[in-house]
């Protein structure tokens, strides 16, 4: 739970990396977390994806947690002090206690610009308009824009915990031949378009 080391250093020192994700029910956040855990497995890491269940429903805020480690993970609790935060819907940013996110970590946000609340904070922010990319690719289900795969591309760019190749492999494996191409394209485009800035 210590927060003092950046991602590369944590992996080098065999320290666990923890991530909090926030999304809206229906946008695919839980599936995304699972795919990211699989991508990390291809990277040779032990990984955990924990969806937080309760009264989740379409449109409601849904949290999920991820852990990555070079050793077997023995911790099962929710993540309280993440290194990184993955925000699939910018309007949910206030649901995360940013002060508990490692100051050297990255906050990955589905947005074109740094949200007002983070301006001048000195935080590292990875920005991408995932909603636009997903819409352009037709990734819409029952009126919900599916930004999960798109945001995984941004996460990979922002944190470098897993490579883009391993992410694409995990996406391909999950979605299968027919549905994978669009989802892989979404992650790739987000990876290319993500801008990492200091707020």
């Amino acid at each position, binding site marked *: *739970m210590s927060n003092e080391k950046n991602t590369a250093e944590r992996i080098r020192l065999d320290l666990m990396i923890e991530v909090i994700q926030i999304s809206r029910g229906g946008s695919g956040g839980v599936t995304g*977390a*699972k795919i990211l*855990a*699989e991508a990390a*497995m291809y990277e040779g890491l*032990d*990984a*955990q*994806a*924990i*969806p937080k*269940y*309760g009264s989740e429903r379409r449109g409601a805020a849904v949290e999920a947690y991820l852990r990555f480690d070079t050793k077997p*993970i*023995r*911790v*099962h*609790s*929710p993540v*309280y002090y993440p290194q990184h935060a993955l925000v699939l819907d910018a309007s949910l940013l206030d649901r995360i206690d940013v002060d508990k996110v490692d100051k050297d970590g990255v906050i990955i946000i589905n947005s074109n610009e740094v949200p007002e609340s983070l301006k001048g904070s000195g935080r590292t922010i990875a920005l991408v308009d995932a909603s636009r990319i997903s819409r352009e690719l037709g990734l819409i289900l029952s009126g919900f824009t599916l930004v999960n795969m798109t945001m995984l591309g941004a996460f990979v760019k922002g944190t470098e915990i897993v490579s883009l190749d391993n992410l694409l492999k995990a996406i391909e494996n999950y979605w299968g031949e027919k549905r994978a191409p669009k989802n892989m394209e979404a992650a790739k485009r987000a990876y290319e378009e993500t801008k990492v800035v200091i707020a």
Partner: protein
Amino acid sequence: MVVKHETKTMTGNDAASYAALYAKPEVIAAYPITPQTTIVENLSRYVDEGKLDAEFIIVESEHSALAACMGAAWSGVRTFTATSSQGLLYMAENVFWTGYGRLPIIMPVVNRCLAPGWNIWPDFQDSMAFRDAGWIQMYTKNNQEVFDTTLQAFKISESKDIALPSMPCLDGFIISHTSGQVQLPTPEDAYEFIGPYSDPIIEIDVDNPWAFGAMTGPEQYSKNRKDLIVAMERAKKKIVSVHKEFEERFGRSYGNGLVEPYGDDVADLTIVSLGTIGDETHEAVDRLNEEGLNVNALRVRTFRPFPEEDIVEFAKENHKLLVIDRSASFGHAGQLGIEVEAVLKRNKVDTPVIGIIRGLGGEDVPYTKIMDDAKESLKG
């Protein structure tokens, strides 16, 4: 022995489903309930896709699910179901009938607390309510152990000298819905390990009709129950030998299959627990040791039959036990704590036992909390 493995990222429920798929049960009857549902959803898909050649019986309740499994087990076929919480309670009559009837049905219980209040999160109140039902109960610490334990359960339960049902227990959501890495053997290796269910103690045979469930007088009845007591005792040895055989074949182990010690052999404090709290405790022990505190751990993997000898041996060498329960016997204490104290007393071991209850209804039990409890216990 070198075996081929494939590592996959999957939930704990997926791991239970894989074990069932590889064991090739001939009959599955189940009713959905959160957080168990995805186990039987997976299995119904395997049957639909032709991956599993089983009769999947759709029923209207958990009571009927287990009743259908009982009929199938009586006909001498490998049988599987799964449930949780209120569903397990609704099965109650048949849970006891299955245990006392010596039907080796495998039924993972995805632990979830009992209502009220309405809550889908884990504690062990549901499976603990059935500790006296004549079922083998093994509590798992992670997704890998769910697969391994469920597979082992078939081999243990179906042995003719055991003939007892098994309830592999997994913490709801914490294991059931969390994705992690699971090493899978090939389906062929897994099946070869458990083998076919070829020698049931009871088998309905239409050419040789028998009466089942007939009136049984006190003399025969008490003999049957005493047989069950003895079979449970034999199951201890069977669990150890199957676990050892599993280790030799697949290279993974959990202590001796009954208990899993962790850390130094001797410590000022031993933390005793079940399920994922046991895994989280390993993290706590390492950190306490780093702080210079002399703490070790014992995870009770098998709760029924109760590993009396192993617990007594471990307690004898150690100075104080902190038993963490995730359920309560209201009017007394946590079930694991009660039983640990009982076996120490019976064996004249005077190691002090502190019992605490944590994690009811999904209350989080992080290693930091376990560390605090350990420090508090060291003081007293």
